[in-house]
């Protein structure tokens, strides 16, 4: 952040100075966001229309990712599934960030018995394997993509809380924080103007990273069939449907590649936030 504020006058030059991989990652992310915002702009095929005569066609100029067992265009299906895959990951991340961030902030800044209680809660959430916890929540509340998103979010609370706690504790004991107290800073001022601005960058980096991880977890849950049923087109569900046709491997690899490239791009951006920027 300091580098951006140091050289604000020439944004174009600043963009040009970033590594190529980071620019590429942002381009991928922009494409994925556009897919989910306006799927019809990116594919002329109807994702729900199956032409049985054209089933299981390999990738070609007309069907970029080939067609599925009902003859639907797979690329159109992937684009159509982007919205729910990406939004549910976003919801999951926001839940984890909000609950975990607040817990970690309270724990790290207040200390004492608050820290002890929240510390045990975090330990408890860490002790239940994330994926298993998400599975249990979904099975108790029903097989829907929105429940999958909430479950993934709850399962990620511990990670956020732990990082926020350690960052807040680290900056609370920083010398410049004590210096602010000595020049008359009261608790709220110190927290809002010194502790949070110094803690937030690594938390934002984690949130971006967790966004990628949530896409993976949600794809996993959709793959097991815990999300909305077909004809929904969540990326994980597309892979699950495709695996029953081993002689048409593109049914697995096309949506899988989209997941991998998206998550790679998100991880690269997270690393960029943490180190450079």
């Amino acid at each position, binding site marked *: *952040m300091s580098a951006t504020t140091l050289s604000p006058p020439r944004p174009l030059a600043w963009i040009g100075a970033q590594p190529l991989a980071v620019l590429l990652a942002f381009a991928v992310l922009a494409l994925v966001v556009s897919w989910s915002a306006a799927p019809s702009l990116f594919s002329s095929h109807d994702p729900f229309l199956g032409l049985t005569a054209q089933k299981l066609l390999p990738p070609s100029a007309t069907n970029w990712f080939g067609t599925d067992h009902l003859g639907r265009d797979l690329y159109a299906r992937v684009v159509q599934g982007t919205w729910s895959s990406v939004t549910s990951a976003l919801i999951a991340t926001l839940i984890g960030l909000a609950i975990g961030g607040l817990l970690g902030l309270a724990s790290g800044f207040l200390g004492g018995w608050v820290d002890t209680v929240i510390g045990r809660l975090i330990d408890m959430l860490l002790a239940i394997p994330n994926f298993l916890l998400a599975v249990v929540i979904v099975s108790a509340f029903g097989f829907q993509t929105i429940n999958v998103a909430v479950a993934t979010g709850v399962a990620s609370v511990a990670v956020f809380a732990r990082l926020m706690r350690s960052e807040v504790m680290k900056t609370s004991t920083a010398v*410049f*924080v004590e*210096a602010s107290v*000595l*020049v*008359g800073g009261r608790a709220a001022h110190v927290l809002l103007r010194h502790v949070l*601005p110094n803690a937030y960058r690594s938390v934002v980096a984690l949130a971006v990273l967790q966004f990628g991880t949530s896409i993976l977890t949600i794809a996993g849950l959709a793959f097991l069939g815990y999300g909305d049923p077909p004809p929904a087109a969540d990326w994980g569900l597309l892979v699950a449907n495709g695996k029953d046709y081993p002689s048409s491997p593109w049914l697995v690899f096309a949506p899988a590649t989209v997941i991998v490239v998206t998550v790679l791009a998100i991880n690269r951006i997270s690393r960029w936030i943490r180190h450079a920027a």
Partner: protein
Amino acid sequence: MNAVSPPADLLAIRGLSIAYGNKPAVHDVDLTLHAGRSLALIGESGSGKSTIARALCGLLPASGTARGRILFQGQDLLALPEARLRALRGRAIGFVPQDPQNALNPVRSIGAQAQEAARLLDLPDVAARRARILQTFARIGLADPARLYDAYPHQLSGGMLQRVLIGLAILPGPALIVADEPTSALDVTIQKRILDLLGALQAELGISLLLITHDLAIAAERAHDVVVLKDGQVQERGTADQVFRQPRSAYARRLQADVPALNPERFRAATARQPGAGEAIHVDGVSKTFQAEGRSVRAVQDVSFGVPAGTTHALVGESGSGKTTLVRLLLGLERPDRGHIAVAGTPVATDAPDRLRGLRRELQLVYQNPFTSLDPTWSVGGIIAEPLQRYDVGHRGDRQAQVIEALRAVDLPEQVLRRRPGALSGGQRQRVAIARALILRPKVLVLDEPTSALDVTVQAGIVEVLFRLQAQLGLTYLFVSHDLALIRQLADSVTVLRHGQVVEQGPVAQIFSRPREAYTRLLLDSIPRPAAASRESFLVDQETEN
């Protein structure tokens, strides 16, 4: 390898240039070290002195590239293949690092790491090597070597670790020891012992010593020859006596003028301070005990002193003397178990946060390390204005003018206002910290080792600013330091602390000229005295030649 009689020039560096990536660090350096002599490489941070030491030991990081020649016993180290160089390292060149606390692997025992050095000797087995290790430890004055052998690094003090490291360096019987600021992380009294030990080994075993240091006084006291470096280039070279008595280059002259040990009277003549009315600081019978891991540590015991307004009082002590605790008690950051503290007539009331907050308008602190005391996310202007905003002094336009005035007072240009601390040098940061501390116009300023993280020339600049501000504003300073030479330059009175207790206190002139306590004398003895030393090194020369 040593069958041929060693050439007189043990080490000859010719046209050495080193760059990290495309940033040059060392430029076209020549230096020569004769067998059995000592050479000091002097420079401040960024001068390239440590880079040269590392290149010599083959320790440059992968990004570093060296050109030129480093001739050691006639072989060019830069041209040797890695395998041959490795054989030379350790066996013929011993390395003594800067920070002993970090120079031994914390998860392996001293003995295990000593065995690594001892395997270079042609000894039959582990037991024989162990015997030789214990013998060496005893030789360098380590008591109970067998217990040390089984100990882990964290169980030893810094001084002992440095002795162990020196022991490991001389164990294989090297021809050259490269010591990279071997004492800068140690307490002053231990510094002296370590330098004495290196000098003795050099004289008795005929090992050559390359001493890397930032301290001109130490170099002049301890080395035969001196090379002065700045920004990777040689400024001056000659015998220690020459460079010290008649520095020819501008930089060496400035270094000489800025080293406190060499200029005890530098600031005394320039300032005529009139003590104001009354006591600015009053400390009476203060004690503080900490509980740590089930043990109680008596950090401060029954300390009393008073500071007249408008003067400078110094707290001196080595690590563990309680000086930092005393500062925290004074600022109300800790609560004393017993005793009473008052600043400008007001008691430091740790149980009344609002009164304490009010008091701090009169009482400010400058921290030791300017790299941690400024919030990296704030601009310099924001940092200096923060006290004004917190205490709601003046209105917006007013504050801006006050901030600029404060900047001028510490000799910083207005352009730094919008910069962040990360873009400033250490000296500039400390000036920002002083500006922040003074903007509320406090009566008392506590300075906790404010220059110990800085180079001497930068330190001199900061001390000048402090003196000028004191004269202008009638400030009272409480100056905490481990550096007696610096205190002799700037303080009016001094309290010598040890293990949390007052050893003795009084006017600086009296304590420095007629110390009553043995510990004070010990501290005073550790101030380097090059004039006396040059005679001693002359004697050593004669000894080695005879």
